């Protein structure tokens, strides 16, 4: 008589599971950025993200924007930097609320950092938020923050090739400030050429020549930003 064999089916040790995730990490930042934007709009705040290479003039542009607009808007500034608060202190001297965001090792601001910084602001007293991104022409392109407009500052002292070398950040730019134009001759850089390079890459970008030390051109940046 055949014994009934009771076979216990065991999963072989070491079963491999194939798990589909489809998790896009950059999209995750985009979603957070959209949330930030909704939050800001819900509180009647317009935000501008100012990007550009190290030393291009982002802080100077923001200082001049604050100077021009402080009677027209209730301004707050977010200053992204790797560690120090030197620039943040510079801006705060104009009497606007400034939050320094230290990114540590990260070379760009992201929507998550902005979300955290927004918790530090009393938005009842703000209707314009100027965000200074970390000096970098590469990574910030991939990390929208939830701002209404994105500005890229590029200075003539960076040489004639800076725009064509970094097409993707200029594809993100609503407004481009070609800065330090007073030094264009000394640098042998053709400002009109830089403007053409921007328009070739992104026909929608509005380009303004500026000298953020004296403030020349900053009123045109204000107009280009529709402020």
């Amino acid at each position, binding site marked *: 008589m055949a014994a009934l064999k009771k076979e216990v089916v065991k999963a072989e040790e*070491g079963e*491999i*599971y194939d*798990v589909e*995730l489809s998790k896009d*990490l*950059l999209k995750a930042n985009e979603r957070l950025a959209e949330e930030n934007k909704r939050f800001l709009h819900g509180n009647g705040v317009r935000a501008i993200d100012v990007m550009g290479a190290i030393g291009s003039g982002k802080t100077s542009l923001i200082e001049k924007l604050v100077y021009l607009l402080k009677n027209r808007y209730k301004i707050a500034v977010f200053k992204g930097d790797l560690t120090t608060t030197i620039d943040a202190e510079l801006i705060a001297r104009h009497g606007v609320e400034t939050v320094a965001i230290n990114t540590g090792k990260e070379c760009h601001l992201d929507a998550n950092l902005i979300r955290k910084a927004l918790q530090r602001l009393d938005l009842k007293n703000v209707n314009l938020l100027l965000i200074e991104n970390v000096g970098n022409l590469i990574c910030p392109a*991939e990390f929208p923050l939830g701002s209404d407009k994105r500005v890229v500052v590029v200075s003539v002292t960076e040489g*004639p090739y800076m725009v*064509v070398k970094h097409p993707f950040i200029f594809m993100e730019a609503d407004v481009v400030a070609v800065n330090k134009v007073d030094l264009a001759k000394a640098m042998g850089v053709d400002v009109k050429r830089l403007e053409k390079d921007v328009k070739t890459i992104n026909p929608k970008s509005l380009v303004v020549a500026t000298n953020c030390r004296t403030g020349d051109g900053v009123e045109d940046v204000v107009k280009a930003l529709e402020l």
Partner: protein
Amino acid sequence: MTSQIVQSVQAEAEKRGAKRVTEVHLAIGKLTFLGLEQVRFAYEVLTKDTIMEGSKLIIEEQEGSVKCNHCGYEGGFKYEDDPLYHVPVPTLKCPQCGSVVNIVAGKECTIKSIKLLVA
């Protein structure tokens, strides 16, 4: 970015009680700042002494592509060859009608799937 990837995978693996991670499939867009060599290197360093150590990293490069809402074109960028600088520059102009296009692919950094060794 690579440490975000590693953290995400580890979290998923732990959630499912996995013993080890054997494979990770990534799709990285060509338009992102991520250099594949750098990602591979960082991956090796970051997964040491974790359940991901020794796992195979498979990276699929996604081509950049644009879409034109004006004429419906969908495909690669229009490049302009700059005679002054001798560099082909990608642009947001539609190769078909010249209107401004939207970028629809090439900017992703996706963990497509992972293979887990469950106890």
